[in-house]
Structures are given as C-alpha cells and as structure tokens.
C-alpha cells in the first residue's frame, strides 16, 4: 500500500531514471560475477577480453594507494600487458597448483566521470586453496575502484585498481585479482 502511494507520487522521468540505475547496477553486478567466474575457472583468455584496449589494471596496496605511491604488485597500462601477464601465468611462470574463489559484493555505482564513463566500486574477498591443506585461506581482501566504458553496447573495464587491505601477501600472488 505504501509502495503504491510512493509510486503514484513519483514523476515518470524520475521513475525512468531509477529503473535505468537499477538496470546499470544489475549489469555491473552481472559483469563482476562473470569476471569472478573467469578467474576462478582460470579462463584467463576470457578475463583479458573484459578490458578495453587502453585499460589500466593495477593491484596496489592500500598503504601505497592512501599515500599516493604508485608501485603495484601488478601494473598493466594496456590490454597488451594484461595479455602478457595471462600468457606468462599460463605458459611460463612456475607455481604450485591452486584454486581461487573470488567473492565480489557491496557494489556501489558512483556516477559518471567527465568523459561520461561509469565509476563504480565493489569489495572483493579472494580465497585460496592449496591442494595439500584443508583450509581455504583468506588470500586478499580489498576494493575494486573501477571505470567502465561501453564498447559496441557491452560494458568493459577501462580501469580496475584493486586496492588491497591485506598488506602482507601470503608468499605469492600467482593469479590475478
């Protein structure tokens, strides 16, 4: 009853705007779910395709981020570098086998920047399972600070800065966040 009254008092424009916001929220949430699945299933070739050609992908500690220090665990200035990382991790880099599980939540769509690109943040939790231990260990927690852009109608990441709180990495971060 209350909801009906509220709807009745809302103008058509405001309602359209609200619906659009909900659709965008849902679209980004779906994007993040696909992103997590690509990494969890170690389909790095699909992961690469979620970025624009000029994308910035950086994994940086909250310690550095808060102090304006640029050094990142991973620092990719374009899709080529993201592809090189995926290739290296798949084909050359030696590390013990493992499973990862990304949980992404608390999505906040912040609005648009001056170029009209969509700004958003989401929290992430990354669990890691090594095959000789019974526990899924909390490997990293942090926040994605994102800029999305539409290309041929589809959302892509123009920027993803993964700012992690867990400053002490457990030995090595072998797969992307």
């Amino acid at each position, binding site marked *: 009853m209350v909801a009906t009254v509220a709807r009745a008092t809302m103008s058509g424009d405001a309602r359209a705007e609200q619906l659009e916001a909900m659709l965008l929220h849902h679209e980004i949430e779906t994007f993040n779910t696909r992103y997590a699945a690509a990494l969890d299933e170690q389909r790095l070739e699909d992961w690469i395709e979620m970025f624009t050609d000029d994308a910035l992908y950086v*994994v*940086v*500690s909250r*310690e*550095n981020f808060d*102090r304006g*220090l*640029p*050094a*990142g*665990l*991973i*620092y*990719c*200035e*374009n*899709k*080529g*570098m993201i*592809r*090189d*990382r995926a290739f*290296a991790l798949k*084909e*050359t*880099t*030696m*590390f*013990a086998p493992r499973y990862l599980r990304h949980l992404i939540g608390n999505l906040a769509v912040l609005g648009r920047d001056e170029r009209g690109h969509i700004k958003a943040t989401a929290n992430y939790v990354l669990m890691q399972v090594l095959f000789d231990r019974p526990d899924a260990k909390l490997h990293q927690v942090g926040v994605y600070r994102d800029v999305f852009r539409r290309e041929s109608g589809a959302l892509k990441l123009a920027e993803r800065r993964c700012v992690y709180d867990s*400053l*002490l*990495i*457990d*030995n*090595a*971060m*072998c797969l992307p966040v």
Partner: protein
Amino acid sequence: MAWQKAAALSELSEGGVIGVHVGSTPIALYQLDGVVYATHGICTHAMAILADGFVEDGKIECPLHQALFDIKSGKALCGPATEDLRAYAVKVEGDDVLIDLDAAAAGEAPVATATPSGAGAPTSNTAPSARASNGGTASEAKGEEMSEPLSITKHYAWPAEGLSRIPDWVYTDQTIYEREVAKIFHGPTWNFVALECELPKPGDFVRSNVGPTPVVVSRATDGSIHVFENRCAHRAAEFCRELSGNVSEFVCPYHQWSYDLKGNLAGVPFRRGVAGKGGMPANFETAEHGPRRLKVTSHRGVVFASYSDQVETFTDYLGPEVLREFEATFDGRPLKLLGHYRHTLPGNWKLYHENLRDPYHATLLHTFLVTFGLLVAGNKSLMLMDPKGRHGVMASAKSDGKSVTADAKKEMRAYKENMTLADPRMMTFFPEFDSPWSVTMATIWPNLIIQREMNTLGIRHIVPNGPHEFIMKWTMFGFEGDDEEMTRHRLRQGNLMGPAGFLGIEDNEAIKFVQDGMQRVPDKEHLVMLDPSVAAGSSESLISEAAIRAMYKHWRAEMGL
C-alpha cells in the same frame, strides 16, 4: 664448587668411554688402568659427541673428523681440533663417580700461566678454584660458551664432507635460529632499516626491524637519524604502531610514557605521584631508562643500524668490490619512493640469500630471464663475493637471447622459442648506471637485497620470524628527476619482481618448496657441489654454488659451528 654425581662406577668399563650429563653440561667419562677421568663431552672442533668415539693409548678420537685429545689433560693432540677439551676433577666414592665442573683435573694443561695477573710463580692447579681464576682468556671464554645450556647433541654436527653439504638443521632448528638472532642480527653487522627518502623531514619515522626485533627509525629536528627498539622502557609495549608518519614525540599509549625523536625517555606521567603519595622513587633517572638505541650509519641515502659498538665502518663492512656495486646503483641521485610490497615467505631466511648467490637456478627456473637474454648461460656474468663471504653480487650483462646456443637451449626447459610480448617495453633496458651490468642483485649480509633489474629498482628487507618463515618488505624506488615516462617504465618493469612478479612468484614458490621438503622429509642434507674448482668465493661461471659455500664458511664461523 660442589661435587656432583656423574655416573655409577659400574657403568664404566676399562678402556671405555660413556657420555653423561651433569646439569646441562655434556661430559665424557673414561676409565684407564682403573682410574676414572672426565672431560667435556663435545669435541671442540665440530660439536660431535666424544662418547661415540674411540679410546686408544690414553687418547680419545672424535668419531666425526678424527681429532685426538689426551684423556687425562684434555689437550688437543692432532687436527682438526686446535682447542683443548676441558678436563674435570674426578673422585670415586663407593660406586658413585663424582665430578666438579669448576675444578680442573690435576693433569690439565697449565693454562694458569696465561693469566695476565699471574705475574709471579705459576699458580698451582690443585685448588678447586684454580680454573675459575683464569676467566678472561680467549679459550676460557669459548669454553664457557660451550657449556651453555644449549642442548648440544650430534644434531649440530656439520657433515664430514664439509661445505659441499648443508645439513637441514641449519634451516629448521629453533635453537640455531635464536643463536642467529644473537650472533648475527644483534651481532657486529650492519642491518638495513630504511631509505632516507622515506624520512625526508624532521619528525618523520618508519617502523622497521633489525632481524626480528622491531625498531623505530626517526629523523630528529637537527636532521640526524636515530634507531631504537620499539619497546616501551616501562612495560614493554610495542608503542609505535603506524607503518610510517610524522610526530613531534612518541607516546606509549598504555601509560603515556613519552620518548623524543632520538629515542630518549622524555616524560613519565605522575612521576612525583599525586599529593605527595605514590610516584617513582626519588632517585629515578629518565636518562637511565630509555629504549635500547642502536648505532646508525647512512650511505648514499640508505640507512643501516647495528647493535654492536665494535662493528667496522660501513665501507669497510662492504669491502671495496661490493661497495663499488652498491655505489653503482646508489649513484648519488636523490631517491624517490615509489611504494612498498610486503609478504611472508614460509622458508628459512637464509634460503633467500642463497637464491641470490645461486646463478644456476636463474638459468633454469626463470623463463623470463632466459628467453629475453637477461641471464643466460653464456652471457657475460659474475657471481661476486666479498672476501669474508658475507655479501654477494650476482651480475649479468643482457644479451639479445639470440646468442643462446642450441645445446644450451636443450639444457634449459624454461627457454621458450619465439616467445614475444604484446608490450615489449617491459623488457627494455635504458642504460643509466656506470656499470657493465644490466642486472645486479646485491645481497648485503644479513638482511638486505638490492635489486637493480635493468631499470626496476628495489630494496628487499628480510625480517626473520622463526626458522620456518620470514617477512619480506620491499621498497621500490626511482630517482628524483625521473620524468613521468621513466617512472612508468620502472613500474611496468616492476611486473618482473615482487610477490606477483613473473620472477618473484617463482623464487618465493621454490623457496617454499625447499622448506616443505625439509619439514616433511627431515634431518637430511643439501648438496651444494657445483664448480668444485672454486672452493668458496667469487666465480665467473653461472653454473656454480661457490658463493653459497662462501656464505656458509662465514656463517659457521659467526655461529661457532
């Protein structure tokens, strides 16, 4: 002192030896022609148990390296032992064999003559206290150390093959670890604590470590840099909690004891009590109750601290050759901080030093190094060690990778033919240093690695955390005056290193595997036999472990092992 029962006479047999403990002191008991003799139970050479040795002609032969000692006097008769065994006074009452740990045997070598105070006639050894009066001679001091309650067993015997083997206990034993903290990190060494560019202004501080011990590095108002333990003089609280920052003083949050920027105790709340009651004793002096302050030195913007007042100057500590490489990287340009990485590594801290004194692995494990010609068997390279075996520099001049011979490729599983990068800028080297090397990895004993991997520069600071784990704190830097493109180049190239780096992941994983192996299949030894033509020290061959052997030669001397 007191006679203590060591054994029952019936446990001894003529011409035999048994091992016992009196208190915590290991003792060897012998019976020769019906008379019982006692010596310290551990060989003065390599910590082997003498009771496992052989008695012949009044001498005991060590089971490990065949050192010979005279049973009656403890005198070392033949190498490798050069130091005499302690021989103790023995008496037999009924079936009890009693010994006096403070009294020398009548036949013991007359060390009393070495006493500086023994100006007159040589003192007799008959009084039970005769031995104690010799305290202060070098051999005596060492002898005392031997009888510390360090539970000495055969466990700590170095393999008979020498430096070409490293026993697992070097990496897995808690007692060894604690001795390393005391003898090495808190000993006469220079420990990295910070870069000056992290503390540009008065009041700036960084929370750091010397070995496992937390310290504060701060810049005082006069510009000087100070290092002191991060432990309140009152109730031990680790008072500084921020990773870095700027303060006018440090205040322990528990009872608000305050410290100035030089680490001096400045204020004690309610020192005089309230209304004439309570408070500190009238004679309490703040000057006597500060945290432990360390000796500090800084070279080209890199700050080091030492627990020892006897440590040599920093330039002498590095030696001329390693200093030259240090100054090639820290070439006088002011440093610019780019950020930190921090990670734990579930392995013994020394394995990281070894990894960077092991050019052999670099040619085999790291695809990026071999495929892009950074460090390939056949490149111009050097594994430099300082003469003492403390510090090392692994250096290589980049080739284009095409010079790798077909034979070498076959040996290197990591070599990827035709591997190219979508963004090859990551592997570009812009020469900027006065050095023939495009890559140098300098290991400065005991806690610093200086990475100059082409243009990506970083400090790695080892913070040991028990025998099985250490923390690595990385400080990435460039130079003031780098333009934006150069800074970005350093950051791009940084993808090679760190706990998510293409090479960094591999080193961390490999070291973890080594510790896993020792913990799960324990009490064996490692082989470090490569390049036997160089016993221990610098080698021009990448297929060499001579630098690791040099490090252990030094480590054993420092550890008394």
